[in-house]
């Protein structure tokens, strides 16, 4: 059997992906094949973790979200229609999971005793390089609507069209929000030396 799709078609996924192989694996995973699902996870595990880290700025939070995504995807595959690249859909799942994670943290933090300063997390020990830490911190402090297009387009290399598909907005919206994100970062970095 020869699949109809093409590796470099107009609806291809982000750079470094193999849509046809993903589609084959998704088809088998949806049929209950756990080994196909595990292979999908193996192929995308670094991408899942990287997006989470860039969205949340903390390795500890990225760990949590990556594990949640792996479990969520297994049950959510049934809802993947296959009309877009698997990676486009994966980006959407990971981004939404990150946003939910952040919202849950925020509401949890509101209940914390503010008299007790927060102890620096393990990320302080894990992330090397002041530039990298400063960048992650600044990006994770962006408002949601600016952070998502910045991560997708600026950092992950998606096109405006692909980012619009992930966020279910228009290319013009992505373009405008990305421009605002860049301006915000420039302003926030004013003390960076």
């Amino acid at each position, binding site marked *: *059997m*020869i*699949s109809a*799709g*093409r*590796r470099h078609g107009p609806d291809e996924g982000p750079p470094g992906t*193999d849509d*046809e*192989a993903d589609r*084959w*694996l998704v088809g*088998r995973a949806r049929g209950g*094949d*756990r*080994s*196909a*699902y*595990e*292979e999908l*996870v193996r192929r995308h*595990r*670094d991408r*899942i*973790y*990287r997006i989470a*880290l*860039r969205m949340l700025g903390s*390795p500890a939070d990225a*760990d949590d979200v*990556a*594990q*949640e995504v*792996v*479990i969520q995807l*297994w049950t959510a595959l049934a809802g993947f229609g296959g009309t877009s690249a698997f990676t486009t859909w994966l980006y959407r799942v990971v981004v939404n999971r990150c946003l939910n994670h952040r919202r849950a943290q925020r509401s949890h933090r509101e209940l914390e005793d503010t008299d007790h300063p927060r102890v620096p997390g393990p990320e302080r020990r894990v992330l090397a*390089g002041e*530039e*990298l830490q*400063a*960048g*992650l911190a*600044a*990006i994770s402090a962006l408002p949601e609507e600016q952070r998502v297009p910045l991560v997708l387009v*600026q*950092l992950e290399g998606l096109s405006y069209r692909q980012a619009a598909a992930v966020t279910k907005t228009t290319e013009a919206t992505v373009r405008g929000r990305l*421009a605002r994100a*860049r*301006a915000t*970062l*420039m*302003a926030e*970095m*004013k003390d*960076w030396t």
Partner: protein
Amino acid sequence: MTQERTPDVVARGRLACGRDTAALVDQVAEGATDRLDEHQRHCPYCQAALAEFDRLWAPVRAVSTHRPQAPDGLLDEALRRIRRIAADPEYGRIEGPRGRTRISGRVVVALARHLASRVPGVRVALSHVVAAGDGPETSLEDGPEVTAGVVGGSTVVAVTLAADFGHDLVALGARIRATVEEGIRAQTGLEPVAVLVHVDDVLL
């Protein structure tokens, strides 16, 4: 040369020369700081702003070039929860002069998948554990993934894969068989009595 503080410049939206600062920010963010147009080549305001924006953008560039990998074992627990496999009862045994080595069938499966996936023309190969030995009979005819039955010092492996379009599938199968047989023999000491190859799909 006049140099203005960045936040003020960004907030104002225009340099003293009249250039739009948002366009300069985009120029830096897209890695085109050095690609000056005719105006910028002679404008101290633009050159100063580009240099300052480029300096301030360094942390974002650091994030962009950072390629973190998921920590080892991070997703294993999640996969275990899905798999719900408590234990793997399937082992191969290799008798040696200094004792017995037990090799899990899962090792053979993972090794076979690894070996097969590196044969040119193989787009993706799968792995799967099936019971063997005292467990339920292994069905190699129907097994659509890499499956391995391990009994004593012998093993039977079945590999199912998606191939790249344009390859001679018979020759591809022969190459996979040879690679997997040789690799398993060399790396585990088990004797692969059969390597069955099933090409499930051809991808463009």
